[in-house]
């Protein structure tokens, strides 16, 4: 089920009414309802893959007890079993075909011809997200940050809570499980904030991202025939498309969770106002970056074991992060480009320079220096997005080549105007909201007007039901 579908518009109020009016007295039954709703939500797309979700959840639940054993050898064994199990699921469904094809090509280079067997199944939606949920739970127990949960329903809700099931944010057991096990009460402020986030998320997805998608798809399909400036505008448009799409999804997820009394982890912190790549990664897909930091970068030694190891570890997490997105060289290249952008900052010890505060917090506008820093960072990120968006490496390189050589083709000023229509309001709103931590608070007088205008725009654009980009991961 998609957040931007009519089905979800019927599903959400139904679950909300049952949750607060029928099962409000019992925490256990509220959790059971959420679990059923979550499986229904997932099964709407494919009930067959729901079985995989159940198996994965059940195994990690059991491994949780294993890694909590006092005997550390046995605990470690269970930890590895859990890792193998989760990576095995990912390996089979997401990466098997990629490795099989690479193997075939490698053999072909040696002059050996073979026909590898490829899996003819779709990648289960949200597989990368729920396996990472399971792994973080097991890791936290192993590190004694979390105790195993006895109640299976509670654990299953943690893994499959429908707002975050298919595209995150990737939650931590220590953050979400206590909320699942604590009695929840309806809170007007929280619910109203949830509605505002859902509205804002829908605006970003349905109005901005889906409209830009039409322009971007056309430019990437016919890049040979486009003027260089159009291709540059196309790359910028994709930067905002993916931001609108993914942060829109996250806002709807966060807002939906708030309606049920849950607070999920923040996933975006105005990433395009970052002043360097390190700051960008502290603001983009925060739950994934911090997951890799906590469960991969730090266990590998982080930056504490000398510069050389820090460089190695940086490359590892960026490349793995790229590969996490999909079994394709273009994602690995995308991760590699970001690693290259991060490297100078790491070597000059400037990677923690903008670790906390958002740009120009106390001012209306950024300084010239800040503006130029943001522009350079955005240009770099946009360049890397071309690899992410293109169908493959060949198309990415072709696109970039044409965007500096195609000057004879006609310019498309109308397209440029269209992109501005969607991008400028989004930047302006984000700039205005950046100090308010996503609450979308507006002055009391104009509040109803702003909400109704946003709702009208969503209503007029609603109905295309395009998938969220991150669903494929």
């Amino acid at each position, binding site marked *: 089920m998609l957040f931007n579908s009519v089905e979800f518009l019927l599903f959400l109020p139904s679950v909300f009414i049952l949750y*607060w009016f029928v099962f409000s007295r019992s925490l256990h039954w509220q959790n059971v309802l959420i679990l059923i709703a979550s499986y229904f939500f997932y099964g709407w797309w494919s009930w067959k893959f729901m079985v995989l979700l159940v198996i994965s959840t059940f195994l990690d639940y059991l491994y949780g007890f294993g890694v909590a054993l006092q005997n550390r050898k046995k605990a470690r064994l269970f930890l590895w079993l859990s890792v193998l199990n989760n990576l095995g699921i990912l390996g089979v469904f997401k990466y098997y075909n990629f490795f099989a094809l690479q193997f075939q090509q490698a053999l072909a280079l040696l002059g050996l011809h073979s026909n590898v067997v490829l899996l003819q199944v779709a990648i289960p939606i949200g597989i990368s997200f729920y396996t990472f949920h399971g792994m973080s739970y097991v890791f936290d127990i192993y590190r004694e940050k979390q105790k195993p949960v006895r109640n299976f329903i509670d654990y299953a809700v943690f893994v499959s809570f429908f707002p975050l099931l298919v595209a995150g944010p990737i939650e931590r057991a220590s953050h979400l499980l206590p909320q699942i096990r604590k009695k929840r009460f*309806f809170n007007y402020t929280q619910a109203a904030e949830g509605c505002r986030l859902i509205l804002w998320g829908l605006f970003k997805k349905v109005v901005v991202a889906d409209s830009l998608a039409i322009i971007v798809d056309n430019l990437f399909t016919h890049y040979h025939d486009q003027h260089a400036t159009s291709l540059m505008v196309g790359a910028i448009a994709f930067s905002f498309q993916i931001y609108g799409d993914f942060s829109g999804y996250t806002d709807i997820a966060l807002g939906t969770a708030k309606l049920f009394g849950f607070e999920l982890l923040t996933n975006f912190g105005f990433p395009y106002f970052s002043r360097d790549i390190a700051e960008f990664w502290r603001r983009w897909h925060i739950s994934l970056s911090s997951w890799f930091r906590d469960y991969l970068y730090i266990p590998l030694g982080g930056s504490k074991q000398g510069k050389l190891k820090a460089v190695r570890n940086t490359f590892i997490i960026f490349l793995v992060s790229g590969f996490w997105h999909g079994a394709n060289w273009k994602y690995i290249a995308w991760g590699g480009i970001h690693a290259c952008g991060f490297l100078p900052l790491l070597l000059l010890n400037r990677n923690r320079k903008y670790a906390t505060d958002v740009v120009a917090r106390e001012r209306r506008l950024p300084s010239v220096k800040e503006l130029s820093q943001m522009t350079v960072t955005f240009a770099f990120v946009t360049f890397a997005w071309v690899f992410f968006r293109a169908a493959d490496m060949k198309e990415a390189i072709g696109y970039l080549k044409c965007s500096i050589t195609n000057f004879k083709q006609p310019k498309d000023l109308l397209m440029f105007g269209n992109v501005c229509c969607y991008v400028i309001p989004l930047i302006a709103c984000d700039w205005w909201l950046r100090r308010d931590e996503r609450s979308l608070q507006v002055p009391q007088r104009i509040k*109803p007007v702003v909400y109704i205008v946003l709702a009208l725009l969503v209503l007029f654009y609603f109905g295309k039901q395009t998938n969220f980009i991150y669903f494929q991961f």
Partner: protein
Amino acid sequence: MKQFLTKTILYLLVTVLLSGTLIYLFISQKPEFFLGNAVDYFQCQYQYGQINKKTGFTNIIIGDSRGNASINPRQLGGKWINLSIPGSDLFEGYITLKRYLQYNKVDTLVMVYGMSYISEYSRWFNLRTIPFQFINYSELKELEQLERKYNYLFHNRAAGHATLRYDQFIRKLKYLHAPFSYRETFFDGLHSFCFSQSEAGIAKQKVITQLSEYRGYTNFGVADSNNTNNINANLRFEPGQINQHYLDQIMQLAAEHDIAVYLIDPPMNRASFNSYNKSVYESTIDQFLEGLQKKYPRLCVLQTDVWLPNTMFGDPLHVNNKGTTWISAEVRDRLSR
């Protein structure tokens, strides 16, 4: 909770009512922009106007856009008018004849329909006939009954009884200009309204001048076309059941009013003919036309050229003025025999 629900419902209601009012106002004031393509709207409205009034022309041509393009009534004589409606079908053809007969006498009827429109899915019924309200409500109800009888949505196979009813309901909302049914296309309309008013005005003038000067003939330009209208040669031609029903109705009207009826399958360009020639599609169309001739003694299938050179086409489907001159002359000759 009460406060939350009240506020949420209030916001939703205001949004829905406001959007409905906005769309309704725009549709009622500027239907040409909000019900579809402005040029189509002007062209169809002009033709609808001709159909519903006394014109004095006793020989008529009905058909789809290829009917508009293929025959220039001026070349056939002083008593001819082309009442073809772009994207139309035998259903609209029947309505055209029925309406025209209310105000006029008809001696000769020439039908020009691309065969694919008689069998395949055509979206124009939903994009023009319905939003532009060519038919009246009782005619739509009549059509719905037929669709239920055949479990077949006009121009489209229904996936079941429930789907058919649902699709009919959605279509009815569009027919009634229910604001919410035009929600998804509202911004396209607003865009055209804001940025294409002058172009639409010029196009309207051009379309109406052309239609009135040439009595319903539409000039598809002088450009040569080398494009192929891809024909699936392995496809079997099967006329839609509803189209067959309305062909029966047309023939019944023709018998009641003693009208001579001719059917023309308009020519295709050379490239299209290459894929069509000696195909299953060709033989099944021939069988269909032969069958018609036997079934309706009053109907004569006028055999014109099956194909014409690319230089006589303005686009893959429609002949240009060179092609029109050729076909019109050929039709005039055949009719005079």
